[in-house]
Each structure stands twice: as structure tokens, then as C-alpha cells.
């Protein structure tokens, strides 16, 4: 089963995008549930986004330096 890794929403008035600083993982890597996949930055802090499930990274759909909107898919993890 495939899981989408998305930028989580924090509300209508919260920042609606974040910039990808760097990926800790590559396509084809295996990840544990909760393992940090990507580091992002908003105006207030740097964030890491954890893997939603354990599995293999099928694809990475946003690159370092990209601005990602809330809800946008950044990667697909195959369980």
C-alpha cells in the first residue's frame, strides 16, 4: 500500500508553505515509521517531517529548494 508524505496543515492563518532544505533519504531507501525524511524551513523554524509508515520510498516529488504548499505530496512510501 502506498502512503503519501504531505506537508501537514496548521490552519488557515498559519503559513501555507514551507521550503525544503534537504532530503535525508533517496528514492529506493527503506525507512522506519517516524524516521526523519526531509528537513523544511518556514519563517519561524526548521522542521523535519517523519515517515508516516515503515516502507520503501517509491518516489520523491519535490526537490531541495522547492516551496511546498500545505497538503502537497512530497514523496510516496510503499509499505
Amino acid at each position, binding site marked *: 500500500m502506498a502512503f503519501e508524505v504531505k506537508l501537514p496543515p*496548521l490552519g488557515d492563518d498559519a503559513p501555507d508553505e514551507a*521550503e525544503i532544505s*534537504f532530503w535525508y533519504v533517496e528514492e529506493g531507501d527503506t525507512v522506519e515509521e517516524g524516521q*526523519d525524511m526531509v528537513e523544511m*524551513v518556514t519563517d519561524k523554524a*526548521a522542521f523535519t517531517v517523519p515517515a508516516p509508515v515503515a516502507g520503501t520510498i517509491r518516489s520523491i516529488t519535490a526537490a531541495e529548494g522547492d516551496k511546498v504548499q500545505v497538503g502537497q505530496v512530497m514523496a510516496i512510501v510503499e509499505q
Partner: protein
Amino acid sequence: MNISENQCPDQCECGGAAGGVKNRFPAWLKKRLPARDRVEPVLALLKELGLGTVCQEAHCPNTGECFARGTATFMILGRVCTRDCTFCAVPGGRPQPPDPDEPRRVALAAQRLGLRHVVVTSVTRDDLPDGGSGQFAATIRALHEGASATVEVLTPDFGGRREDVDRVLDAAPEVFNHNVETVARLYPEVRPQADYGRSLAVLARAAGSGSAPIIKSGLMLGLGESVDEVRAVLADLRRAGCRVVTLGQYLAPSAAHHPVVEFVEPDRFERLGALALEMGFEAAPSGPFVRSSYRAEEIVARLPAKTVTRADA
């Protein structure tokens, strides 16, 4: 967001030399985003009830963590502020009249989130004759009655009017918090329409009230204050009757806001927190991500029970 325009200050370890986004924040200012399935129910509830939170309005970096834990700090009296503090992301302008149904909805949200301790704050309402104190009082009462929760208010200064401070206190919040935000010297550039002495007077008034709430205040560090100035504020807060103080890193909402002058290292936060305890504060959360209401329920739970008059034991 203009991240690239917001240069890293020289004194910070990240150097700024690389100039890249990666290096803008020092390592200790990194958070982990929670799984979205734990955050979305809270967002949905807030939306359904038409409630605002300071978490979202202020772009708080702890929002995801707190929402995932099922807690939030409600912001009443609208989303438009009558002041122009340079640290704050809440927009200024002409606010809407208070919503008389808002207290009921805050209580309903608290009940549905299962909150035992609720933090309520507001924008500053210099346009209202009572500064919004009546809405605070109604919200405290609604939370006590409707949600059986202990209540922490984080209030504006009400222009220093004692009757407005008293109106809030008469509703018997368990914790009365008013943030001094920064040291006296920086008021003109950080809180131009506020007054350091007035804020201390608000705290002292609350400390002397019959309902005897826990008095709390807080400061942001990294705005250009010195350690000696922070020490002086802590002494003033103790004299005013504060029992709890919070110290956290200021982070600029945008390049148009007051710049971050310094990323204060975790060590200094620890030392200042220890100093505050030595000075007689009963709790002094101090760290880069500490915010006024961050894990407020744990602090209240730790303080002597007799002071929490409506503890939902």
C-alpha cells in the same frame, strides 16, 4: 516569507556565511512535524466552531506538537489587533465587535478536546470601552461551568485600567498571565503602544486580588536584551508577585518584523531558568521553544494544589 532576505546574525553559530536556507536556524531550533492525522481533528473542530488560536495566528513553531497532543490556546475577540507590536504576526486594523456566542463555543471546543486546563488569550482591543475584559470574564465562566476546566488567561494590559483587570479576576481564573515580552529599554521598538511599568502594575493588581490566581509572565529573548536586563525584569516580576515566568526564543514572523538579534543558546536559557528559580519563581520554563502557554497544564499541575481553586481533581 522572504527567507532569503532575512539574514542570519553574525553571533549565531550557523554563521550565515553559507547564506542558504539550510543554515538559517541553529540546530537547536529544529522541530519535528507531527503526523497529519493527529493534527487534522483539532483543525476541523476549530474551523467548525469558528474559533481562532494564537498558535496559528502567531505561526507558533509548536503548533503541530500541541495540536497533536490535543491542545490549543484560544484567541478570543477576533483576529485583528489595535496595536502594532513589531514582534507579532497578528495583523493590525479595525476589529469586529465581540461575538457574544464566542465564550460558549470556546467551552464547547475545550469539552470536545477533553482539555482540563485551557489557555485563553486575545488581541488587544483598545477600541472597546472595557478592553475586552467582559469577554474574558464570560469565557472563564463558560469554561468553568461548561467544561469543568481550570483556566489560564493571557491578557493584554487593558490600558492599565484596574476595573478591567478586576473584571477578569472576578471570574476567578486559576492562572492570570500577562507577558511583559521584553526588557524595559526595548519597549519603544518592540511594544510601542505599551508601557513596561503599566504591565508590571497589571500583574501586581492581579497578585493582590482576592481570588488569588497564580500570576505568570513571560519574555522573549533574542531581541537585543542583555542578561543583566533580563535579570532586572525577573526581579521586577518577583516584586509584582509573579510566581511563574516563561523564557523563550523570539522568532521573526517575517523580514518586515523586528529582526532576531540573537539566537540564544540553550545553555543560557538553562542558566536563566535556574536563576529565576533561585529568585523565588516556583516554575520557570526556559528554552528556545518555550512559549507563554507551552505545556501550561503541566506547570499548573505541579504547583501547590491549594492555589488552584477549581482543580478538576
